[in-house]
């Protein structure tokens, strides 16, 4: 009996730790070199948000390094947008998965991920303000250089008047021809690569205009050209062009030109008819640079958060009702052993929940379902044991020996049944690796975890609890076998 006392202490310790971790306001573990938050991670389907699968555009060369770089840039951009707990994951075959919890402006987020964001400062010294509309399609030397660099070998370069911009008009999708300057592309002074920092700010007389502040990189690429241009073109225009579209072409103020000439200018401000989101995207693009390779969106999901919240509430309600039913069944059908099984089941639930928070396991709706189903099957071990126990009692064995025999003989069945389902969970986990099948993964993880933990709670914990009960009220049980469910 000594062994059980030891087990009881171990089980109580595990229960205490698990309950502590399950507390909603658990502070996390930050001692002994560990630094870990203990909190629930909700899946996208529960908190709402978007999930995007990106792939290197067909025909582009990518290796490990460029993909790593692309993933890093995507991550920086996403964080730059202020998305908390975004997940950016690289996958085989030039793919990147991006999860954006709580992102409602899907188009905005997608655009920031997808667009390669070529920003140019363009020589507009001969353009009179007001003659070119904002949003006009502008051809620049940089665009031509990039297009010609990516040209397949032996193909003739495109004539300048053949360059177009993709249409922005949904109703009338016609490619727009690019504007030229007397038959030639406009001169690019500097690209966004010359900037070191950028931020969205409010400005204007009423402080209601969104704009983007930027700082040039010291000694950056073509930064000197930029400073020289500003210094020499007071009261003339400079254009800011993003992905071939004219954002604005402010007039260079005389005092700015003077500070550029004196070598004290370190940046400037881009104004345009920006909304807050647009200003933030532009700032993120300037700051974190273009992607090393173009990426295509090949799949995406978006989930409205309200639907998720309803699902969470309902799943919790369903789980509580289900667990109470199972507990009642075990108590009514198996009586005193049922008490031990119920305690084990509660222990099972609390250990699982603590691990979900500790590891952490992302709780999506299928994951919660997997956990609930594992509760349903968790009692299978106890049922196998108790049925065996009843048989032994009916065959005339004494109570203590029947309990021992029940646990010993049922063990192989419990082990086999759990192992076969655990293997199936493993297969499902690998199947769930495919993007479209990823809800499967949550289900496989929680069900599989439940089965493993069940091996401990259904056998060791139930046995310990039952022995403790026998120790306390063993004599009554021996006299009244109906308490054992016989």
């Amino acid at each position, binding site marked *: 009996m000594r062994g059980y006392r030891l087990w009881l202490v171990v089980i109580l310790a595990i229960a205490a730790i698990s309950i502590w971790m399950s507390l909603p306001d658990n502070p996390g573990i930050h001692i002994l070199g560990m630094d870990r938050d203990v909190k629930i991670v909700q899946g996208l*389907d529960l908190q709402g948000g978007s999930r995007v699968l990106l792939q290197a555009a067909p025909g582009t060369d990518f290796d490990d390094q460029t993909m790593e770089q692309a993933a890093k840039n995507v991550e920086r951009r996403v964080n730059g947008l202020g998305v908390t707990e975004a997940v950016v994951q690289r996958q085989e075959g030039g793919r990147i998965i991006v999860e954006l919890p709580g992102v*409602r*402006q*899907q*188009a905005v987020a*997608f655009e920031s991920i997808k667009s390669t964001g070529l920003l140019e400062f363009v020589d507009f010294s001969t353009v009179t303000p007001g003659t070119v509309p904002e949003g006009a399609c502008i051809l620049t030397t940089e665009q031509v250089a990039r297009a010609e660099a990516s040209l397949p070998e032996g193909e003739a370069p495109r004539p300048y008047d053949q360059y177009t911009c993709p249409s922005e008009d*949904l109703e009338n999708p016609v490619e727009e021809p690019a504007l030229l300057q007397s038959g030639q592309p406009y001169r690019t002074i500097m690209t966004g690569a010359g900037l070191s920092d950028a931020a969205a700010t409010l400005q204007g007389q009423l402080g209601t205009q969104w704009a983007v502040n930027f700082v040039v990189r010291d000694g950056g690429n073509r930064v000197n050209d930029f400073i020289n241009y500003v210094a020499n073109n007071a009261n003339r225009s400079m254009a800011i062009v993003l992905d071939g579209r004219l954002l604005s072409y402010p007039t260079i103020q005389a005092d700015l030109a003077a500070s550029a000439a004196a070598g004290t200018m370190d940046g400037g401000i881009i104004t345009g008819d920006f909304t807050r989101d647009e200003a933030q995207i532009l700032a993120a693009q300037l700051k974190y640079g273009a992607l090393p390779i173009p990426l295509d969106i*090949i*799949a*995406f*999901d*978006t*989930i*409205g958060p*309200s*639907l998720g919240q*309803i*699902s969470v*509430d*309902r*799943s919790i*309600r*369903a*789980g509580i009702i*289900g667990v109470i*039913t*199972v507990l009642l*069944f*075990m108590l009514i059908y198996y009586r005193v052993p049922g008490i031990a099984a119920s305690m084990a089941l509660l222990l099972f639930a609390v250990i699982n929940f603590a691990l979900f928070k500790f590891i952490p396991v992302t709780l999506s*709706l*299928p994951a919660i*379902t997997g956990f*609930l*189903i594992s*509760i*349903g*099957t968790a009692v*299978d071990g106890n*049922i196998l044991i108790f*049925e065996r126990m009843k048989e032994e009692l009916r065959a005339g064995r004494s109570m203590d020996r029947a309990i021992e025999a029940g646990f010993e003989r049922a063990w192989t*069945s419990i082990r*086999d*049944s759990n192992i*076969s*389902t655990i*293997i*199936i969970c493993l*297969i*499902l986990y*690998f*199947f769930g690796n*495919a*993007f*479209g*099948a990823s*809800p*499967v993964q949550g*289900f*496989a993880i929680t*069900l599989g975890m439940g089965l493993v933990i069940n091996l401990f709670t259904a056998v060791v914990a139930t046995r310990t609890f039952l022995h403790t009960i026998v120790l306390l009220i063993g004599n009554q049980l021996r006299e009244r076998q109906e308490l054992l469910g016989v």
Partner: protein
Amino acid sequence: MFQFAQRRKLFFLISACVIIPGLIAMIYSTIQNGSPVKLSIDFTGGTLMEVSFVRNVDEQEVRDTLEEFGLSDYVVQRLDPIATDAIDETDVPAGSRWQLRFEETDRIDDLKVYMQDPNRLGEFWSPKSVEEDPTREDALTTSSVSATVGEEVTRAAILATLAVAVIVLGFIVFAFRRVPHAFRYGACAIIAMFHDIFVTMGIMSILGLLFSWEVDALFLTAILTVVGFSVQDSIVVFDRIRENLPKYRGEEYDMVINRSVLETIHRSIATQLNAIFIMIAILLFGGETIRQFIAILLIGLMSGTYSSIFNAVPLLVAWEKGEIPFVNRDAKRRHQEELTAAS
């Protein structure tokens, strides 16, 4: 005593009554749609969109809008409005909610803007106020899968199914390695497994034809989980038969089998009942999005319990007695000789 083994023909008949309509539905569906069950975008690629409008639009309006936007191959289905009882502080009346499915995967954002035009379907419905949810996309869910990804998922699904089949076979061979006629036990367990697959697929095919239920990645999960539980059930019963056969050497084969089933049936029923309690709780009180998955899991689980007790075991008896055509004729002859000798 209930006669499991003796009434086997009745049990086979019951199974046939469930499976045959399903098979007919699968054949009809294959001719009609090219696949025995309705496949979701997980496998085919495309976009699935759930969207609510403030205005109570009718189906023709939705169709017209999609048509004008330039979609040709689309499916439109009206859904029940989201029940607002679970959302706090809302007094917004539920609008009309729709499920749209189409092949296009690129212009989703454009479509959202297009649909919300006041001259078309109007504003999206949201359970929240305009201040809280200015984009009105709160109750909108879309899922879009390109054809390449769809093909990959299909490939992964086939691989997963094959892997499970191999594991199950290996498991049975291992579990019965020291039993006479081990092959029979394995074959019967696998037939029971196919029974469950056919039952769930057939019912899914019927539901697909009647209510447009679609087979997605989660459906496959349900099937594979069911397979795991089903084989386990068969093994628990067979395990007991294996234990009892030498113990009751004098008894008739079907009596020993009957005894074994009765001894394990408490466990089977108690275990299944608990799983069923949980699933019914999720089905009745749980979230809506998971409902089809649970329904299939529940059907499969019940089929699994039935098939291991009422199919796998009687099949074993039928095999022993030589009642299965083309198999084990010797046993049949011997059995008849015994009968004539006895009379």
